[in-house]
């Protein structure tokens, strides 16, 4: 299941690191089941571990005694918000209830990652997760292990990971803490992903003061597998051996899910650094190769990655999934620190580990593969049958002959608490929505408009992000067809047929703050559109839901609305949610972040050679391509990048979203790409049409001459046309001779189109007729200068 320590019960105070709280002194050996039976009244630090009174009583009821120290540690992490989804579960059910039918889905919500069939033989699996709090506390390792965690989720499904993407959100670009966090996060993602040999093909870099004390570091991974190599996590088959493979277990990351996650952050954050895991990408690379070799040799019965909640989560989930029991000898777990106690071994979140269930007669073969790759593999236990009574088996763990754990695994993995938390619309929402950006002063003259354009393209959210993306390897594996700054990453999956997948991740916290229901739909629509402009057909969704504290009714309302919007949106678009992650407690003190649902959409393209890039093509002849704007532009400026950059304004209601129109647009784009009508296509979203034109021109250094439509030519209407962020739009360029067929296709699908100009290979400028003309060199300077100015000019190095 989840691997990221991002949420947990908030009752845990920072004084209460479990390693310290669980202070049984061990003079008489560890706290055993026998001893727990004899000392029913002994006080236990459950509250400090984040468990409520009633939760603790429930544990006592399940066990019919007090839990041992190890059991208490296990329940506290498995029943944490992060692992149990106790506040979100009642809402997340909608993703299943409203799921549109799909004959492609091989595995869905509840698995390590969703799996989607893209041909009769090939499937892909993808998922996005958060590693927000660790990345704030220790940016490099937090971000690095975020990549490592999501990669193991993908690996556990039987897939070879083939690409990663990282949606990142930081505080104000010029804030001193952003200068601390961003470089570390970027270096951590690069350091881990590059060393694993996974191309980084996209993502986001967003700045907003709302994320000042709580950056969002989300990580997405996609993997590819033959359909018949799909792996299960079930610890099936009594007598089978439980093998722990990968890195040794250390004290790093203990309590990540319950300590870091419970965190509404405060001045004590630095003290939590020991709760952040430390990554070793080299070991993970070897682990990947070893697992894939084991899968191909059919040597694995069940497999689960170790992430958040470490061994506890892997043991209980694999046993619960099969209804079996398990017998584990904890002293067999290879340790970095020989002095570790049983509850620490069970709670450790040391990275780069996988739990395998293998047949006894294949154990030697499994160990041989591990040895070939130089990876440690150790038999630590065996699968046991269900109870004589017919009840599911129990998980029994001994440590040096002391029985320290004896629990029903499902009571930890599946039967955690579920809460329907109180919800209330934020009190300020009505006033916020009434404060519309459409009434703000607008640029009045062509010169003002030009100055606005230059300011916008150089603003932190719209500027060139090469400073970040150059630190990621986008070429490794040799199948990257499109990568950032393209709208979506596009990966070739099959070299012979050209079959490929496209991926995009998008979110807009400002829109969601103004209207979480439609904000979530807008994020979905944008991601869907970003995949569609490449020519791929969107087929599935993953999400990472970043919110404040669920104990705040206003946050809970935002969460419920966003989930409802996303579930409704997926139903309307006909693509299922296959999995995702919830990250609560993203707040500093009482101030929650903007609700930020980040949505990932996966698309399929039959032949990657048909892909459409965002940049206008260099014309082969004197005649430029024709530029069309698809979709309709309205006076929609609330929540826009323009409102924020020029007025620091956030208010009003976000643009309208019409998913039927998004669907029609995607159909036009896919068909037009397939038959070769398009030389470029670019989604219109943040920064509006102006931003799209600048990016499309700068990509290959091709100019454009734009004529605004009649109804947008007077007064402030040119400004609206250029900077409105109306949804459901894309800019395309069409080679001469294709325009009739292309517009015919639009008419057939009911997509409105507007011819707005031509590309210009001779004159390197963007001209908005009747308004202004800007040389591309000037645009490029404005677009590219910002990041180096903020975070250090690194290059080129002049001699």
């Amino acid at each position: 299941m989840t691997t990221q320590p991002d949420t947990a019960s908030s009752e845990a105070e920072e004084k209460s690191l479990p390693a310290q709280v669980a202070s049984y002194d061990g003079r008489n050996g560890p706290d055993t089941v026998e001893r727990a039976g004899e000392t029913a009244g002994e006080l236990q630090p459950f509250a400090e571990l984040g468990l409520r009174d009633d939760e603790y009583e429930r544990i006592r009821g399940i066990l019919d005694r007090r839990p041992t120290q190890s059991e208490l540690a296990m329940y506290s992490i498995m029943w944490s918000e992060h692992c149990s989804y106790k506040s979100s579960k009642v809402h997340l059910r909608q993703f299943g209830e409203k799921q549109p039918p799909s004959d492609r889905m091989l595995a869905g919500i509840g698995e390590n990652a969703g799996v989607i069939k893209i041909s009769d033989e090939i499937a892909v699996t993808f998922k996005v997760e958060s590693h927000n709090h660790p990345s704030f506390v220790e940016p490099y390792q937090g971000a690095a292990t975020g990549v490592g965690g999501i990669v193991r989720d993908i690996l556990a499904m039987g897939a070879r990971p083939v690409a990663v993407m990282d949606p990142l959100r930081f505080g104000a670009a010029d804030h001193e803490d952003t200068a601390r966090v961003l470089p570390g996060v970027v270096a951590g993602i690069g350091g881990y992903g590059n060393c694993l040999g996974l191309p980084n093909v996209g993502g986001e870099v967003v700045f907003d003061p709302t994320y000042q004390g709580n950056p969002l570091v989300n990580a997405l991974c996609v993997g590819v597998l033959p359909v018949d190599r799909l792996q299960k996590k079930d610890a099936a088959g009594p007598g089978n051996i439980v093998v722990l493979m990968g890195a040794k277990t250390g004290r790093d990351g203990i309590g990540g899910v319950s300590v870091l996650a419970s965190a509404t952050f405060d001045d004590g954050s630095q003290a939590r650094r020991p709760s952040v895991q430390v990554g070793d990408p080299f070991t993970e690379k070897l682990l990947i190769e070893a697992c894939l070799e084991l899968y191909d040799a059919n040597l694995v019965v069940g497999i689960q990655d170790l992430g958040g909640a470490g061994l506890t989560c892997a043991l209980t989930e694999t046993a619960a999934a099969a209804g079996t029991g398990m017998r584990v000898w904890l002293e067999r777990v290879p340790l970095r620190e020989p002095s570790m106690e049983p509850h620490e071994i069970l709670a450790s979140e040391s990275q780069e580990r996988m739990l395998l269930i293998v047949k006894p007669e294949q154990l030697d073969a499994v160990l041989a593969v591990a040895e070939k790759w130089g990876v440690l593999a150790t038999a630590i236990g065996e699968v046991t049958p269900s109870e004589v009574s017919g009840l599911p088996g129990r998980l029994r763990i001994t440590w040096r002959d002391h029985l320290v754990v004896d629990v029903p695994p499902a009571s930890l993995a599946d039967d955690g608490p579920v809460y329907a938390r109180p919800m209330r619309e934020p009190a300020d929402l009505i006033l916020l929505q009434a404060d519309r950006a459409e009434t703000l002063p607008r640029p009045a003259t062509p010169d003002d408009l030009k100055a606005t354009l230059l300011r916008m393209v150089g603003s932190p959210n719209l500027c060139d992000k090469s400073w970040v993306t150059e630190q990621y390897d986008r070429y490794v594996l040799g199948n990257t067809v499109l990568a950032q700054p393209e709208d979506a990453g596009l990966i070739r999956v099959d070299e012979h047929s050209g079959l490929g997948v496209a991926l995009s991740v998008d979110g807009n916290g400002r829109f969601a703050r103004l209207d979480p229901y439609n904000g979530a739909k807008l994020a979905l629509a944008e991601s869907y559109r970003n995949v569609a402009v490449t020519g791929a057909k969107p087929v599935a969704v993953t999400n990472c839901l970043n919110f404040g504290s669920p104990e705040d009714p206003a946050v809970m309302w935002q969460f419920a609305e966003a989930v409802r919007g996303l579930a409704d949106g997926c139903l309307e678009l006909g693509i299922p949610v296959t999995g995702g992650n919830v990250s609560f407690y993203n707040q500093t003190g009482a101030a929650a972040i903007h609700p930020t649902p980040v949505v990932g959409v996966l698309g399929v393209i039959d032949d990657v050679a048909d892909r459409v890039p965002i940049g206008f093509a260099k014309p082969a002849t004197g005649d430029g391509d024709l530029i069309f704007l698809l979709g309709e532009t309205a006076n929609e400026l609330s929540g826009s990048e323009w409102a924020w950059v020029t007025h620091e304004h956030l208010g009003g209601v976000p643009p309208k979203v019409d998913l039927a129109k998004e669907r029609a647009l995607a159909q036009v784009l896919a068909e037009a790409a397939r038959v070769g009508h398009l030389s470029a296509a670019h989604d219109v979203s943040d920064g509006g049409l102006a931003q799209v034109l600048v990016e499309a021109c700068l990509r290959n250094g091709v100019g454009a001459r734009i004529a605004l439509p009649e109804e947008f030519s007077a007064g402030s209407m040119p400004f609206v046309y250029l900077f409105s962020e109306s949804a459901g739009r894309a800019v395309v360029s069409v080679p001469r001779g294709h325009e009739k067929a292309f517009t015919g296709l639009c008419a057939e699908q009911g997509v409105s189109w507007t011819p707005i100009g031509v590309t210009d290979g001779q004159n390197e400028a963007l001209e908005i007729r009747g308004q202004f003309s800007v040389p591309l060199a000037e645009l490029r300077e404005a677009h590219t200068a910002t990041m180096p100015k903020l975070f250090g000019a690194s290059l080129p190095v002049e001699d």
Partner: protein
Amino acid sequence: MSARIGVVTFPGSLDDGDAARAVRVAGGEAVRLWHGDSDLHGVDAVVLPGGFSYGDYLRTGAIARFAPVMESIIDGARGGLPVLGICNGFQILCEAHLLPGALTRNSHLHFRNRDQWLRVDAASTAWTNSFEADQEILVPLKSGEGRYVADRATLDALAAENRIVATYLRGNPNGSERDIAGVTNEAGNVVGLMPHPEHAIEALTGPSLDGLGFFTSILKHLAGASA
């Protein structure tokens, strides 16, 4: 029969599949070699691919240089076996003293991935004979420790003996001495390159097809040698 080009996989090699693909696209037969096996299986030439062998722990290439397969490659290279080291492979060749100098941390301390213009200065080696001298090519660069350094005498000798294989154009991306992107040994059979020609062999996935020249060069070289 097409020439057989070995591609070595160390623990942590990443671009081994890409190098093998480049050999095939150029028309050769790619033979995968395993770091722990000192048998070169009769290959006609060897590519040491990019990646992070042994996690780049200790020093880039410092551990890989001692792998069993390297003993055979070092022996072979001294006897004229053509060897191309790309990125991490270049670092390994320097650690193995088959090439002079060393690759150190980029001067700006960041990993850098960009499409890089190069000038092929030495078109006479086993791996560059398909290029014109001074030909300008576009090939991806992606490395954190790509800054080539050597003492002045070595640099002067490399320049004087036409052993600088390629130099960076339009901006030095990592602070390399004299913009050096690649060098060769005295015999011209061993070449180290920091940029990645194996990522510029297909229009779909690379910025150009310029990288293919390194792989067609070796096939041409081997065909000439056997003729």
